[in-house]
């Protein structure tokens, strides 16, 4: 294993090269550029374990806990190359969310117990925030944890829990008090072993016919008090302290890039680039994507210079999710009568998953805070508009 300073000291190009080399050596070719956006753990465990063995699994964790300790700038390269080389997404709640939160708010015992098990893949995590009646409005959550000796007894329900059906631990926000004036108070973070009696998972099929997310039900589930992260009733502060710089990735160009690649493939196969009307519409999307790159760079530069991102970064998230939709809609238009197919459609000797991407593009404008919520926040936090 290489030490953190070594990675960060590498020239950017050399670091890129190291990542590419790793991918060449360890990522099976059938796992590159796969269609499925959210593979289950078993489907990509080869890659997961390979990353762990090579010491590349946890790019931003500190070296002493088995991470690479990358700076935000190097982490950006890591993420860029990941996408560019077609690496499949791995179940990353443990790595990206629970790990960092434990590092910041966990006890030494918690760190010692949980972190290594994330790296080995023994613990696969999911994140239980949303509930049926608290989507955009997290503070209204109702799953209750009542103290009973050295345990909490949890009752309630989570929803939109991504990949809960292949996780064995859940990082859950629960309500431990109703007395507080401010609704954000009285919430506690609990780590719950999903093999505990009373936990039940129901996968929910999505528009594409896949089951990315689930409902998780808790029926008198006993959770040791030792599984609380941070202070009881102060879980809100823990939950919201996700790494600030990671928010830039919500605005990454990846999705519209994938979509425009498909549009171009179909357009070439059908000779659409010879049609000035199509070319004119295509030009708009192409330039939107190009300019998104310029805007992304403006924020990436802040990170590279060691700065912190403000609320304004969510303009990228709004733009990229809407662009993703526009491009997939254009692809359906170009598909003509073939837009009736749920299956992939012919593009010369190849196929294009026009409907798959169109349907997938409905989600990012909602998840991670709907674009309307993002605009509400921008109106207040950046434009300082009155209420």
């Amino acid at each position, binding site marked *: 294993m290489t030490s953190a300073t070594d990675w960060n000291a590498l020239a950017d190009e050399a670091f890129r090269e190291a990542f590419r080399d790793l991918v060449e050596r360890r990522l099976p070719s059938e796992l590159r550029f796969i269609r499925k956006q959210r593979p289950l753990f078993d489907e990509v465990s080869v890659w997961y374990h390979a990353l762990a063995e090579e010491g590349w699994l946890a790019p931003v964790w500190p070296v002493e806990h088995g991470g690479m300790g990358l700076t935000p700038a190097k982490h950006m390269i890591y993420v860029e190359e990941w996408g560019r080389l077609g690496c499949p997404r791995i179940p990353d709640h443990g790595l990206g969310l629970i790990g960092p939160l434990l590092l910041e708010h966990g006890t030494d015992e918690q760190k010692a117990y949980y972190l290594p098990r994330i790296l080995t893949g023994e613990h696969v995590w999911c994140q239980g925030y949303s509930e049926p009646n608290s*989507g*955009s*409005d997290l503070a209204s959550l109702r799953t209750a944890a009542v103290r009973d000796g050295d345990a909490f007894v949890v009752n309630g329900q989570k929803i939109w829990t991504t990949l809960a059906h292949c996780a064995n631990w859940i990082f859950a926000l629960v309500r431990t008090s109703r007395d507080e004036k401010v609704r954000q108070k009285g919430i506690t973070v609990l780590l719950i072993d999903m093999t505990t009696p009373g936990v039940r998972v129901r996968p929910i099929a999505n528009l594409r016919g896949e089951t990315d997310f689930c409902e998780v039900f808790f029926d008198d589930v006993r959770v040791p008090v030792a599984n609380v992260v941070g202070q009881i009733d102060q879980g809100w502060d823990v939950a919201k302290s996700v790494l600030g710089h990671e928010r830039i990735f919500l605005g990454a160009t990846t999705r519209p890039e994938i979509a425009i690649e498909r549009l171009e493939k179909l357009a070439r196969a059908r000779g659409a680039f010879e049609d000035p009307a199509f070319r004119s519409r295509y030009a708009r999307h192409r330039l939107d994507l190009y300019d998104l790159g310029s805007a992304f760079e403006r924020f990436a530069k802040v990170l590279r210079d060691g700065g912190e991102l403000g609320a304004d970064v969510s303009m990228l998230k709004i733009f990229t999710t809407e662009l993703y939709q526009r491009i997939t809609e254009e692809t*359906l238009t170009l598909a003509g*009568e073939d837009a*009736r197919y*749920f299956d992939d459609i012919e593009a010369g000797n190849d196929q294009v998953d026009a409907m798959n991407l169109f349907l997938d593009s*409905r989600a990012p404008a909602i998840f991670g805070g*709907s674009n309307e919520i993002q605009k509400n926040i921008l109106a207040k936090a950046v434009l300082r508009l009155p209420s």
Partner: protein
Amino acid sequence: MPQSIFDDSEGMLAMLRDSVATLASRQPGAASVRQKRAAGADMDKVLWTAMAQAGWTGILIPEDLGGAGLSLTEQAVVSEALGRALISEPVATGAVFASILLARADASVERGRLVAGLVDGSLILAPAWKDGIGRSVSARAADGGYMLSGEKRHVDLAVSATDFLVVAALDGGFGLFSVPAKGVGLSVETAHGVDGAAIGTVRFDQCWLPQAALLARASSEAELLDAAITSARVALAAELAGIASRAVEITIDYTKARVQFGKPIASFQVVQHRLVDMWSDAEFACAAVVNAVETLADGDAQAGRMAVLAAKARAGDAAVSICRRAVHLHGAMGFTDECDIGLYLKRAISLNATLGQPEDLRLEFVNLERAA
């Protein structure tokens, strides 16, 4: 809420709407879609039979041929109501398109058999008019009959069909053939349609037909098909307008019930204005359908054709974009397969892509107008 408004002094149209609603209450459209999809089927036989019994497979067939002898007004009202109820049987192709093809064919025993079967539901007819790329279907005289070869794509009811109605090149012109589904040399391949129904690709490989299979001939494909396409587009536009209108209502109901930050989300101004936009789009779609039906009835062929192009484009755009916004306003719920709104979106996409997407229809409208 939005609805195509025709003169209905005798209340017949309201009655038609009610009967569709009654059928839908017994056989909910969404459930039928899910069943059809799970089975990989191309139709719901129970629903289709019920529709035939109600007389809806022969609305446009003249009375002297055994049909209801009604007009596109009644067809539009039924199609719109089916759209609202998400009853996704391929009425526009399997009933409307087939009806007009047959009504305009020459009188013959074979035509009589097909019409009777279409009206009473005993036959399932699948019009097949769209050639595979580089594999167009042609017929040649052979053994006192005809030999068909080639491929047709985007065929509704290809699996369930008892008979195909196939347009083929013939002697420098075109012929309309009746082809039994069990015929030798005919094979069907299917793919999943986004609206849950299987879509067929039908291949004819030296498929022999008797003389009587030739139902009509004409010097151009347009002469055989245009009337059928026009009527089918009206039916599609009406169905799309129905989908659009119902999707607005469903979304209004959902956003009134869904509480966030202590208020129904329908009380937020941004949501309200979006709902108003959606409602207005649906109203425009309905008005365009009425205009198409009335302009066609006025008798100026060119004006009628333009009105139909406009209606199909407007209703298709409205339905798809309303459903997209509707899914979004349903939040994460809208992204689940359990929520009906996604089925509306998928159905809208499918119908919008049938017989011309809006962009193509608009260009055709402008070409017609500027050529005039």
